[in-house]
């Protein structure tokens, strides 16, 4: 059709025709661009693609006259650009790592795959963090700083040198590990290093803090993206409809998974039906309340118990540190990490069993469970940090004495030298770096503790998968032949993949990575760990796990996990920031030599940047300016909160309006029809048309506004209010539909439509 209008002469186009033609071309272009968004079949779209030919034919013509060449050039470039974009998209998809693997796992169902997608995202995040840390801190120090063994902080002390290469020492991150670039103590506190005058201390501080900032920013952006869709609805708004329309996972390609899915859907249907009915029932409220209080008390006790256990174990480890290393068994040396990982393993199932007392709705129970696990993790982490803090203070004390001792020794040496040689020009003492008296360097100790914690976490995690999933699967499979009861169906059967537990594990792991400020190598370790996890867990899921019985919707709680990650990151940030601000760094190890760590920034501002920036900072940090700024932020938060509440209220009002409008419509129509019915009644001589109003559940209803004479009537109301039963008339309507009246299944729309034809006889 479009090509027919193109018969007009191309050469002689007036201004008006040209404009019209241009418009048509633009329209066609828009159509072609949105072709794929329309639910049309391919044939129709292919025909419409002929419009493309029209465009091509006339785009050249349009450029006649002024600037024809430029126009044609522009058109060609646009086309090339679109093609390039498409090719680039195709190219990009080939580069997403592990896409094939995840698609394999997706056949298990989308919820398990969502965990791996989350893992991949974490891996990307950690890779970026590793890039920052490595490129801006580790690499400059290695390339441009002093090599190993040149200054005391980079050398293994003489007493430790005998054992520095032992595997057990290295495995504990002592020996050569401790005095390497992996830990804080290796870095030199010279203000600039190398030819490029790279400011290492400044870079160290900024990267250490910047890692946090970047993680927070990325998580917030992720949380904002996942907010779209399903944000306006409350939890319980469309439960049944969603269960019906969206519960099937079309990615399932495995018959076993499909069977499980059927079972879980049926269970969830039955549960919700029963739920609705049970909302009215009210059991013994006092017993329930008592049980819930009891459960909470028990859980608080266990949380307190775990906190105390950790504190106790850390104190014991300090005693062990004073004893000779050889007398301690491996268990005693790694007690702290061991206990923490065990607690993380044992407590969640314990909480779940206790929660049985509470008898909550499964969704609410899940929220409580997640909240408790979160409290457990936080409690453990902070107790660990407090216990560590005592240790740090002790180290600081001893450092003071050592510092005094060193200064005193130096003074003595100088006075001896000058008195012996009778000069004031004293060369520095000629002592081998390994023999210099060293301070305790608390930062490296803290870094080592974090690294050991994460390593033990990895070990426990992998061992659990190996034993809990793989060994269990092997035993169940092979012992089943000679065992009295069916191992596969009853206890212990195969393991399920615990999605929520694993996601939480990832989140808490990321929280602990924040100790990277004291151990720059930690981020690299984490990257390796995530890489191995990806392959290891993929294999474990495919080989040893069975599909879920109970469906866990990871996506609805997506925001919840992002919010949790944000909270965990923020809370792990606090201790590090606190130590930066308040504690003074060690005098003989690490990149900071000043009184406080952040003095580096002050120094840089004073010395390196132009003076007016220093003035600006001086003004900005004035308390007189900060207080109003804080006040302003509080006001902004309050205002935004009020606006958001206003929007929510408007939303609810609009919804109510929509519903009452519909009802009003119905009522209006009923009233008017009632009047008509009454008039008709009066006209009729006998009441033969009056049939007893039946209590049918559904009579054929008409869509409002669909009636030929504009009377959209809710016939159900008619039956009860009006005397005559119009249903008799409708079923005699001249229509091809052969539906019997009183169909228990409800109205077929065909009948409704037929009523338009059924009306006339009554008038």
């Amino acid at each position, binding site marked *: 059709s479009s090509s027919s209008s193109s018969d007009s002469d191309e050469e002689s186009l007036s201004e008006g025709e040209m404009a019209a033609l241009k418009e048509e071309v633009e329209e066609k272009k828009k159509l*072609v661009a949105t*072709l*794929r*968004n329309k*639910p049309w*079949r*391919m*044939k129709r*779209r*292919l025909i419409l*693609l002929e419009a493309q030919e029209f465009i091509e034919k006339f785009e050249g013509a349009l450029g006649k006259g002024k600037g024809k060449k430029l126009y044609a050039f522009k058109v060609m470039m646009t086309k090339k650009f679109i093609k390039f974009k498409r090719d680039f*998209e*195709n190219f990009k*998809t080939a580069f997403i790592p592990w896409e094939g693997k995840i698609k394999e796992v*997706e056949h298990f169902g*989308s919820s398990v795959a*969502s965990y791996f997608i989350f893992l991949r995202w974490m891996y990307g995040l950690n890779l970026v963090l590793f890039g920052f840390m490595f490129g801006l801190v580790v690499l400059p120090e290695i390339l441009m700083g002093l090599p190993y063994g040149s200054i005391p902080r980079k050398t293994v002390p003489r007493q430790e040198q005998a054992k520095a290469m032992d595997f057990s020492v290295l495995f504990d991150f002592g020996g050569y590990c401790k005095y390497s670039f992996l830990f804080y103590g290796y870095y030199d506190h010279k203000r600039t290093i190398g030819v490029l005058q790279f400011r290492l201390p400044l870079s160290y501080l900024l990267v250490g803090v910047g890692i946090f900032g970047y993680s927070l920013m990325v998580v917030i952006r992720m949380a904002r993206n996942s907010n779209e*869709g*399903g944000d*306006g*609805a409350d939890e319980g*708004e*469309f439960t*049944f*409809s*969603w269960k*019906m*329309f*969206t*519960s*099937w*996972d*079309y990615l*399932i*390609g*495995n*018959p076993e998974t*499909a*069977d499980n899915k*059927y*079972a879980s*859907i*049926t269970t969830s*249907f*039955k549960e919700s*039906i029963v739920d*609705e009915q049970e909302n009215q029932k009210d059991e013994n409220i006092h017993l329930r309340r008592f049980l819930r209080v009891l459960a909470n008390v028990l859980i608080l006790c266990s949380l307190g118990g775990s906190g105390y256990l950790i504190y106790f174990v850390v104190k014991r480890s300090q005693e062990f540190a004073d004893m000779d290393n050889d007398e301690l068994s491996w268990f005693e040396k790694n007690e702290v990490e061991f206990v923490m990982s065990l607690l993380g393993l044992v407590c969640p199932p314990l909480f779940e069993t206790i929660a049985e007392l509470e008898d909550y709705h499964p969704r609410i129970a899940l929220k409580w469970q997640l909240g408790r696990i979160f409290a457990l993790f936080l409690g453990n982490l902070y107790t660990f940090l407090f216990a560590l803090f005592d240790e740090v203070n002790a180290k600081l004390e001893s450092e003071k004495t050592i510092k005094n001792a060193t200064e005193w020794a130096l003074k003595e040496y100088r006075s001896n030298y000058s008195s012996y040689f009778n000069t004031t020009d004293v060369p520095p003492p000629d002592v081998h770096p390994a023999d210099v008296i060293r301070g305790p360097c608390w930062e490296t100790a803290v870094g080592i503790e974090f690294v050991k914690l994460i390593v033990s976490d990895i070990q426990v995690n992998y061992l659990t998968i190996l034993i809990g999933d793989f060994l269990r699967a092997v035993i169940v499979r092979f012992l089943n032949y000679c065992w009295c009861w069916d191992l596969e169906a009853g206890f212990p059967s195969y393991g399920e993949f615990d999605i929520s537990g694993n996601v939480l594990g990832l989140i808490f792991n990321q929280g602990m990575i924040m100790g990277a400020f004291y151990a720059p190598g930690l981020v690299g370790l984490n990257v390796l760990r995530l890489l191995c996890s990806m392959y290891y867990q993929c294999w474990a899921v495919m080989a040893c796990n069975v599909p879920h019985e109970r469906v866990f919707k990871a996506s*609805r709680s997506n925001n919840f996990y992002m919010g949790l990650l944000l909270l965990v990151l923020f809370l792990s940030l606090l201790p590090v920031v606190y130590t930066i601000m308040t504690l003074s760094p060690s005098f003989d190890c690490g990149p900071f030599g000043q009184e406080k760590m952040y003095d580096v920034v002050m120094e840089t501002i004073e010395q390196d940047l132009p003076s007016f920036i220093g003035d600006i900072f001086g003004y900005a940090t004035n308390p007189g300016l900060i207080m109003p700024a804080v006040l302003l932020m509080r006001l902004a938060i309050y205002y935004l909160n009020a606006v958001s509440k206003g929007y929510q209220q408007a939303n609810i009002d609009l919804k109510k309006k*929509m519903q009452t409008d*519909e009802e009003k419509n*119905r009522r209006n129509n009923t009233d008017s029809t009632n009047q008509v019915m009454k008039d008709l009644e009066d006209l009729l001589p006998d009441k033969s048309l009056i049939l007893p109003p039946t209590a049918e559940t559904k009579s054929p*209803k008409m*869509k*409002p506004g669909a009636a030929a004479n504009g009377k959209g009537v809710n016939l159900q109301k008619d039956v009860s209010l009006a005397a005559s039963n119009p249903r008799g008339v409708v079923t005699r309507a001249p229509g091809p539909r052969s539906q019997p009246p009183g169909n228990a*299944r*409800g*109205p*077929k*729309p065909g009948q*409704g439509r037929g009523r338009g034809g059924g009306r006339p006889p009554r008038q």
Partner: protein
Amino acid sequence: MGTTASQLGKDLLSEYQELTFLTKQEILLAHKRFTELLTKDEKDLPNVRVPMEKILTLPELKSNPFRTRICQVFSTSIVKDGSLTFEDFLDLLSAFSDSATLEIKSHYAFRIFDFDDDGTLDCGDLEKLVNCLTGETEDTRLTPEEMRQLIHNILDESDIDKDGTVNLSEFQHVISRSPDFVSSFKIVL
């Protein structure tokens, strides 16, 4: 236009790319899987129609409770037997692909759930839908009581104009609020 012998022509490929949500690799993979379903002599004919039974042997569709409906909805056959040509197959994959929009997915979901093809979801459609979801065996089905209660609840929630059926706009309204729909309404080869 139709598929050429066993290789997909370059312009056809780029046209399909423009008209569907699939990438080049996905179209080529779809072509490969589709030609695997053809018999030896069928491979050379253009515009071949593959009967529904063969389509249902694909592992991605085999375990799906709506497989027959999917084939029927996407089929352009005159006799309405659910057979698919390659272009129908591409339409199917495009609607179920990762990058398809919510409108496309909800439109096709509505058509799939509309078992009697009358343009609305009434109680009969909903009942058939529930039976598909709860599996084929007798002991997993819902009792008539439960079924009635369930359908009543659903209509309560989604039927805005209270006419006893769910039409396309009501369906899309419910679906657009759901956070899981787009991610679960996916089929990938």
